[in-house]
């Protein structure tokens, strides 16, 4: 690590110590940024920049035409400023000296530095051995590590653009098969203008030797980020996938509307973990990312498993419901979530579990922590279709309120159309237990340490589902976020 980066890291740590957002810096870099606005030409332009085949453009245009007919959803119990879809840059790519770097060594130093500063080392010699990273900067993927090693196992892990070029048959087959372009307003928008993302294909019987991960960075101002992730796990395969995200501190709201599709075939298992730390706006709620994301997995095969684990600590508004369609018999869906909101953040998150196959199982564990003026909602759906004999669901959603100006809501929808199903749902809302606090304080822990310890205990069920490195990071993130907001 160069001295300059070290210096910057020290500054970042100082910021973090003061409870500020440490990833709020902005990288100065030349950009290829076509003008603002959204129309068919924008869609064509994005497609052309990415040198996409005709079928891809057709699909985008179909989505765009459908999106024009759709209405922005109005049902949430929060308000956000009107989004002017014509006032957004839909494509922003850092200009690189070498237009298509053949390897990471050829990627611009400024970009590598940015990711270094974010704690995501891309340069070959510094990489952690256990994780392969696809780094997405604004609208493009700047590099993917460990591709060679993964290729030896037949695993495809690349940016979405590369996948469209090199593996069109796979993309054609699975794109939109879980989240159709007409699914919802933001999914349709994403389908029309998505710029990049990650594609991952695990062949039959293969256990992916590395943790795969994508790191999303929004850098450019007034851009929307629309990435798309598609993971296909063939029969009997296994993959664990991580996702992280940050953005610079800005006064204006930025839109992030991603789509993630997971497909697990017979006996396959996908673990998807997210640590979301987009810029969440300042104390008065100015600025921050609108995180309106559609994530859905399909357990298409028998005995398949999909699990979503998320730590939502950023964004001005988080609005997402990672879901699982349990189609294969004996398939399992899991959802573990910690949503931490402070200042004026809003989180409306939860999951949908749709049981179609026989003996399908789902588990939902959701923990919401709300402080300052934040609103935290759990909204979930458990649906048992008539065909889902012997379905089983367990849901638990707990909320913790820190302070008297925040709110915690739960909206669990349970729809059962089969009498052999067994469901349990429980939810609680409370504040930090005064006796526990007193106990810790009497043992010499200070106020913040005590709160942090209690909150960690509260979220433990979720943290233990995260891969080790992420788990450590998540704990730290929570501590950092809560600092100064209590007491």
């Amino acid at each position: 690590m160069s001295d300059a980066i070290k210096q910057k890291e020290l500054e970042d740590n100082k910021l973090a110590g003061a409870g500020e957002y440490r990833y709020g810096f902005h990288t100065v870099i030349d950009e290829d940024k076509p003008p603002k606005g959204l129309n068919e030409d924008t869609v064509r332009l994005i497609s052309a920049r990415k040198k996409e085949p005709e079928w891809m453009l057709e699909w985008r245009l179909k989505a765009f035409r459908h999106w024009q007919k759709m209405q922005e959803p109005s049902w949430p119990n929060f308000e956000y400023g009107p989004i002017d879809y014509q006032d957004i840059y839909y494509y922003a790519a850092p200009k690189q000296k070498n237009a298509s770097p053949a390897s990471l060594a050829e990627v611009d130093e400024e970009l590598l530095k940015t990711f270094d500063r974010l704690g995501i080392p891309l340069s070959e010699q510094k990489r952690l051995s256990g994780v392969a990273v696809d780094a997405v900067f604004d609208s493009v993927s700047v590099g993917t590590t460990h591709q060679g090693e993964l290729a030896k196992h037949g695993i495809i892990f690349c940016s979405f653009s590369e996948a469209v070029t090199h593996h069109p048959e796979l993309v054609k087959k699975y794109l939109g098969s879980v989240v159709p372009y007409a699914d919802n307003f933001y999914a349709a928008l994403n389908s029309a203008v998505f710029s990049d993302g990650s594609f991952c294909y695990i062949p039959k019987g293969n256990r992916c030797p590395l943790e795969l991960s994508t790191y999303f960075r929004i850098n450019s101002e007034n851009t929307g980020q629309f990435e798309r992730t598609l993971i296909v796990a063939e029969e009997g395969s296994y993959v664990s996938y991580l996702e992280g995200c940050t953005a610079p501190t800005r006064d204006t709201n930025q839109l992030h509307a991603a789509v993630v599709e997971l497909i697990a075939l017979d006996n396959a298992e996908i673990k998807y973990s997210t640590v979301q730390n987009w810029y969440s706006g300042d104390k008065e709620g100015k600025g921050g990312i609108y995180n309106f994301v559609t994530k859905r997995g399909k357990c298409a095969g028998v005995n398949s498993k999909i699990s979503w684990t998320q730590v939502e600590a950023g964004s001005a508004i988080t609005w997402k419901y990672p879901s699982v369609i349990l189609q294969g018999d004996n398939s399992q869906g899991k959802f573990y979530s910690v949503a931490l909101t402070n200042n004026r953040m809003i989180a409306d998150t939860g999951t949908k579990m749709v049981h179609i196959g026989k003996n399908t199982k789902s588990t939902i564990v959701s923990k919401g922590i709300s402080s300052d003026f934040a609103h935290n909602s759990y909204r979930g759906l458990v649906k048992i279709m008539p065909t889902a004999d012997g379905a089983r669901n367990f849901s638990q959603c707990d909320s913790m309120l820190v302070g008297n100006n925040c709110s915690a809501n739960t909206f669990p929808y349970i729809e059962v159309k089969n009498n052999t199903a067994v469901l349990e749902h429980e939810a609680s809302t409370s504040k930090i237990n005064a006796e526990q606090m007193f106990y810790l304080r009497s043992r010499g822990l200070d106020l913040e340490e005590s709160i942090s310890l209690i909150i960690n205990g509260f979220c433990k069920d979720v943290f233990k589902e995260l891969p080790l490195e992420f788990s450590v990071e998540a704990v730290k993130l929570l501590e950092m976020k809560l600092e100064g907001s209590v007491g």
Partner: protein
Amino acid sequence: MMTQQLPLNIEGLEQYQSKLESASGAWLKAFRQKAFDQWSAIGMPTLKDEEWKYLSLADLVNRRFQIATHHKLIEDKQFENYRDKGDINIVLVNGVLWGELSDLKHLPAGLTVSSLDAALAHNNAEIQDTITKLVPNDTKAFLWMNQALFLDGVCVQVAKNAVIEPVVHIIHVTSGIAPETIVFPRTFISVGEAAQVNILESHICFEPVSYLSNAVTDMRIASNAVVAYCKAQAEAHQAVHVGTTRIWQEKGSSLDSFSFNHGGLLTRNNLSILIKGEGTHTIMNGLYGLNGNQQVDNHTLLDIQHPNCTSYQLYKGLLNDKSRAIFNGKIYVHAVAQKTNAYQLNKHLLLGKEARVDTKPQLEIFADDVKCTHGATIGQLSQEEIFYLQSRCITQQMAIQLLSKGFIDDIINTIKNDSIRGKLSRLLLKRFPEVL
């Protein structure tokens, strides 16, 4: 205004309205007119309304209705069996108070019963104040329709410090109507400071006829009063019952409420309780035993606007055949309502192969020093429990009966009054002879 399309198809509406108008005072006239305008403007709810997401009224909208004009009890043998001599029976036929059938002559001290029409004619400020101030809840359309078109009702008042020992049994009976009739049973209850009373409100019909009952009950509970209130719905098999119950609870009062749903093809209950004072205690229990094609939709709202309140809610459903239950329980805790303890539980036992449940327990909490939990379970009888009983020489049929009865008794036994509990048990037994 009359030419515009009304939300429901009602024959002879204009005539009926002009009759209503000529018979009522200025306040009531204005009140009805306002409600009518609101009702015409809002229309009937559809599946797109969040509060009506699971209950379709399409069938209702396509039917042609008329409004009940005769108010006479026809079938009286079963009716006599239903009521108890020991209670104070107040009988309304098709929404009109029927003095001959009621025990109005020997009312205990502190209890006043009059027709709502008469009470409103005397410009009773308390009633006017309460029914205007109680916020409309999720059944706005039905509430406004009732306010616009109700003919009469009953007004029950319990004086300050009065303790009424016998059960006050308000019986809304539907009788002698042509098919496709609408009735508007309306009840107003006011319980004075520190008074105590047990109230049972029954909605019954012993004739096989199809009708719509649009019932509204408003209750104001003054400070420190203790009220047990049970609503028992045993309408005809073909009937549609939409009930709106709005309760206003003042400081230190205690309410033990029970909602019993039993008859009717399609039932929607909206129970909303407003907590308007500190330190109240509220119990909201409910039971629905359904079979055939019955549908029951229970929406409850507890709106806690003051600190130090407690509430317990347990709703249980026993679903046979193709029946369908919907539950939506909302607890809303305002920021000032610190030290609230609220518990909510919704349990279903699915006996029928095609039974269906949609449940949504919902918490909205804006205060931090609270303890709120909710839960929901859905399941069938445990095979292990049945096996255990069989291994003790109990037949399978008997084992199922025992377990189902256990499931129901758990909630029925929360009713403290013997007379009320007895009546509900008898109703259940009649409907589920093979199960219970």
